[in-house]
């Protein structure tokens, strides 16, 4: 990870922590805003990946994975946009679902990192397990719709937790092959 990437990651992490805190202060508005931001980020990222595939990765071994990832993320971004103006409870459920999905991805990444002996596997595993645990607790609370704000608080806690871990991962050393 270069210095610029580290700085970007730290800024994103701080943004996530700030967003999580705002969500707990204004739970009614927070969830909708989070869904909107998530939707815009996913849509832009999806578009970028598809353009990257068309211009460069089309000729790359394994490049089709970039196309698939772009299409799926673009689809997810557009779908998030359609649910962002729905009732708060559905939006909260949807965001928690995405949070759960990220948790699984983190655990899969952790397994891959462990297989190649990369030290980052522990951090990925902690991130994944934390995200899944928060989501499961949130779903248990959500069984009683009167405690909907608890759902929002738990989601915000998940966002803050991810933000902290992102900052932490930016401060880690990365293996790089020095070419001679």
């Amino acid at each position, binding site marked *: 990870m270069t210095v610029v*990437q580290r700085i970007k990651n730290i800024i994103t992490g701080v943004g996530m922590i700030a967003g999580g805190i705002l969500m707990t202060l204004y739970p009614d508005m927070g969830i909708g805003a989070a869904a909107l931001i998530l939707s815009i980020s996913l849509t832009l990222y999806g578009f970028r990946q598809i353009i990257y595939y068309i211009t460069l990765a089309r*000729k*790359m*071994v394994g490049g089709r994975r970039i196309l698939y990832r772009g299409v799926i993320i673009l689809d997810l971004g557009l779908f998030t946009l359609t649910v962002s103006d729905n009732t708060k409870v559905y939006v909260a459920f949807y965001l928690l679902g995405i949070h759960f999905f990220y948790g699984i991805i983190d655990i899969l990444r952790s397994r891959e990192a462990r297989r190649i002996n990369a030290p980052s596997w522990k951090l990925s595993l902690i991130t994944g397990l934390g995200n899944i645990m928060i989501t499961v607790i949130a779903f248990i609370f959500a069984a009683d719709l009167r405690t909907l704000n608890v759902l929002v608080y738990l989601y915000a806690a998940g966002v803050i937790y991810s933000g902290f871990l992102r900052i932490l991962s930016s401060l880690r050393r990365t293996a*790089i092959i020095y*070419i001679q």
Partner: protein
Amino acid sequence: MQKDFHYYATYCAAYLAGFSHDECMDICYSAQFVDCCSATYLSKIGAPRNAATTQLQLELMSAGSDILSLQNITRIWSSFHFLPGDLYAYRAGCTGIYLSKYRLICRPNGMLLAATVRNAMGRSLQAAGIAMHVLADTWAHQNFAGTPSLVINNTDDYFYEIMPLDDAYDEHRITFRHSTTLKDDPDEHIYVNSPYQGSEHSIMNLGHGRAGHLPDYSFIRYKYLPAWGDYEEIVKDNPADYLRAFTQMIYALKYLRRGSGSFEVGRYDTDAMIPHRAQIEGIIRKRQTDSCDDWRSFGQSLSGCEIEDFDIDKYQAEYMQAENASRRDETFLGKFLTAALSQKSMVTHEIFTSGNLLAGFSIDGRLRSSLKKGK
């Protein structure tokens, strides 16, 4: 390639080409110094930073992903470590931006190699050393480009080491790990490489980082799938390539020593090597990650003189204590920097005139004048 080949093997090639011990020391020192002359080092000795021939790990880590930083990286790594094989290569169905990266793939015996050796003609022993570094790296670093690019330099898990077994060959799956604490373990076929980075311009996607140090080891034969290769595997035979690099160095150095005649790509001086063939092949094929001791012993047996260890600070005081800029140019490091700037200008100019902007604009004249001003 590493110090074993750039320093000690280059000494041997220079000696077999007819240079004296002292001349060989200057040539091999310059060849190895290409891997040390970073902007950080140059600022320490008060030399022009644009003469850098390499970038340190921390310099790379702090490099931006803006166009100017990428052009600076490309200028350095394409000029000295990944000399493009064919700046006019064509591949059907590609966009222009893809082609500009594809054309920077390093290959031996390209038009730029001939230009590099000819550019060193009549200059200095330092220029000859730089040219030998570039030449040797075209063999080791072939199929990778000196610009950060995922679509060119990425590799996947498909890596097999090919080992001789009686009259046939045996294949062993290579396992890559990326950890700052691990070392390569050839006995277990475990090597360290840079991790996958999905960003096209990530520094992790510069050169052969994704293949680890495999291109740097003379003993290894392996097959893999390069990102640009359309799913066709490449069999990389390092022992054969290193032998060609060695004999091509002898041929090029004889040309430089003569100071006349012509240099042609694809020619190798195997005759000069024949009396020592078994010994040279033995060093190249020995399964070890560092062949310094073997090459040094061989070099010393050739010349009967001691080859001193490489010392990065050997010529530093001479350069720093020079009275003025023109005196500095006459020092060992001054001559090295002049030759480095000339090589960088020539390669940048050729890339630029091929219509490729990845190394930036051609600044041939300006580089020279900034050196004279001692900026």
